[in-house]
C-alpha cells in the first residue's frame, strides 16, 4: 500500500559552502498534515524552495509519487505535479485587485490554450466567492492587493493557494501575524483541507501546530533533528533545548 506522496531522500543544498539543508530524509503521507518546525535559519523554507523548484538541490532526490522532481522548473512542478505554495512573506500581485489575484491562481487554466478559453462563468464566480469567503476577503475583492494590511495579504495568499487547488499544499507560516482566534480559525480551515489535499505546514506557533499536526518533523541546522507526533516531539529534550524553551524554560 502506497500512502507516501512525497519521499525526500538525502536532500542537500549549500550556498557557497554554507549547508542550508543537508541529507534530509522525509516522507509525507497522502492526505495528512505534516508540520515542519525548527529554529530560525534551520532550513525549513529552503527545503520548500527545493520541493517547489525555486532552488536546485546539490544532491539527493525528491520523489513525488515515485517520480523524481528534484531540479525541475517551478512551473512544471506546480502544473504537472500540482504542488502549491504560500510563501513566508506575503507574495502576491500587488497592483492587481484581490479578485484578479485569486482568478490568476485558479486551477486548470495555466496553458495558453486554456487561458484563451477561460470565461468568468457562474460556476467560476461561485468558486471564487467560496474562496474569498473562506479567507474573509469578499468585501475587499475590488481593492488592490497592495492596499491590504499585512495580515490580509497573508490571507489573500492562502486564498490563492486554495484556488490553485493543488494536491500538495505547502504553507510557510500561514498564521504569522494573526490574532489567536484567527490562528485557530486558520487551523480549522487547514484541517478541512486535509484528506482531499496533502499539506506541509511550517509554523512557529505551538498551539497551532498542536491543533493541526498529524506528524511533526523538526529541522535543525539543515538536518532532521526529530520526527514524530506532536506530543513526542514536544517532549524531545533536544527539541526543547534548541527550539522550544530558553535557559529559563520559557517559550511561546
Amino acid at each position, binding site marked *: 500500500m502506497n500512502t507516501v506522496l512525497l519521499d525526500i531522500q538525502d536532500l542537500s543544498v549549500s550556498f557557497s559552502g554554507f549547508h542550508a539543508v543537508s541529507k534530509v530524509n522525509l516522507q509525507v503521507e497522502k492526505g495528512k498534515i505534516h508540520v515542519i518546525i525548527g529554529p530560525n535559519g534551520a532550513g525549513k523554507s529552503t527545503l520548500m524552495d527545493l520541493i517547489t523548484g525555486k532552488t536546485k538541490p546539490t544532491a539527493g532526490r525528491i520523489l513525488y509519487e515515485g517520480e523524481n522532481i528534484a531540479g525541475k522548473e517551478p512551473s512544471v512542478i506546480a502544473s504537472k505535479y500540482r504542488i502549491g505554495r504560500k510563501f513566508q512573506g506575503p507574495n502576491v500581485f500587488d497592483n492587481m485587485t484581490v479578485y484578479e489575484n485569486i482568478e490568476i491562481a485558479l486551477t486548470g487554466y495555466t496553458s495558453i490554450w486554456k487561458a484563451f478559453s477561460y470565461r468568468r462563468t457562474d460556476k467560476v464566480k461561485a468558486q471564487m466567492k467560496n474562496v474569498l469567503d473562506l479567507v474573509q476577503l469578499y468585501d475587499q475583492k475590488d481593492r488592490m492587493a497592495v492596499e491590504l494590511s499585512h495580515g490580509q495579504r497573508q490571507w489573500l495568499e492562502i486564498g490563492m493557494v486554495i484556488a490553485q487547488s493543488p494536491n500538495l499544499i505547502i504553507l510557510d507560516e500561514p498564521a504569522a501575524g494573526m490574532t489567536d482566534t484567527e490562528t485557530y480559525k486558520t487551523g480549522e480551515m487547514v484541517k478541512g483541507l486535509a484528506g482531499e489535499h496533502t499539506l506541509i505546514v511550517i509554523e512557529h506557533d505551538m498551539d497551532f501546530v498542536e491543533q493541526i499536526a498529524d506528524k511533526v518533523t523538526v529541522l535543525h541546522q539543515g538536518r532532521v533533528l526529530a520526527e514524530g507526533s506532536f506530543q513526542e516531539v514536544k517532549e524531545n529534550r533536544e527539541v526543547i533545548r534548541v527550539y522550544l524553551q530558553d535557559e529559563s524554560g520559557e517559550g*511561546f
Partner: protein
Amino acid sequence: MLVIDDINVNYGKSKVINGISMKIGDREKLAILGRNGVGKTTLLKSVIGLLPLEKGRIRLDDKEISRQSPHWRAQQGIAYVPQGREIIPDLTVEENLELGGYAHTKDLEEQKKKVLRFFPALEVHLKRKGGVLSGGQQQQLAIGRALMSNPKILLLDEPTEGIQPNIVAEIAKILDRVREEMSITLVIVEQNLKFARKIADHYVIIQKGKVVSEGEMAHLEEETIKKYLAV
C-alpha cells in the same frame, strides 16, 4: 513622552485612523492590539512619519514632530522596526547594523558590540548579505539595527512574527533588558497575546481606526479580548 493628539490618517480617500489620542510615558511598555487591518501598522507609520497626518498632532517631549520628515524624527530618538523587517538585502549584516547607527551614534564599534551582545546569533552572519538570512534572523537584525541609533522610543511592528518559540521568549527578555539598560520606551504592535502580556505593562486596543479599550495589561480581561480581538 510621546503624545498623540487626536490624529486622522487616510490612504487617499479611505480613512484608516479616525481620531486616535494617547500618551505614552517615558520607559512605558505599551502594546497595541487589534485585529488584522484595523490600522495598527498605519498608526506606527504615522508616528515615524511615513504617512502624513490628515488631522491632529504628535509631540515628542513637548516638541511638535507631526510635520517633520522620518529621518528627522529618527534623529530625535524614534526607532522603527517595520512589519516585514525590511532588511537592505545587498548590504551585509554588519553594514545593515552600521546603517542604523549613522544617524546619530558617535562610536559605531562600541554600539555594535553592545547590540550584538543582545543578539549573539547574528555574530556569525556579520559578513553575509542581509537578504539571504532566514526570516527569524532578519527579525533579530531589524531590532538590532533599530537599537544602533540609541533610541528613546522603539516602535516594533509584530516583532515575534515568524520567530521560534525560545527566541520569542528571549526577545521578550532582551527587550526588557534593552529597556532597562538603554532606558527606552517600547511601543509594540502585537498579535501574540501571550507575548504581549508578558512584555507590556499597558495596552491599547484599536478597532476601525479608533481606540476602543485601553488600560493596564494586568487588567485586560477575557471579555474585552473576546469582544475586540476574537473574530
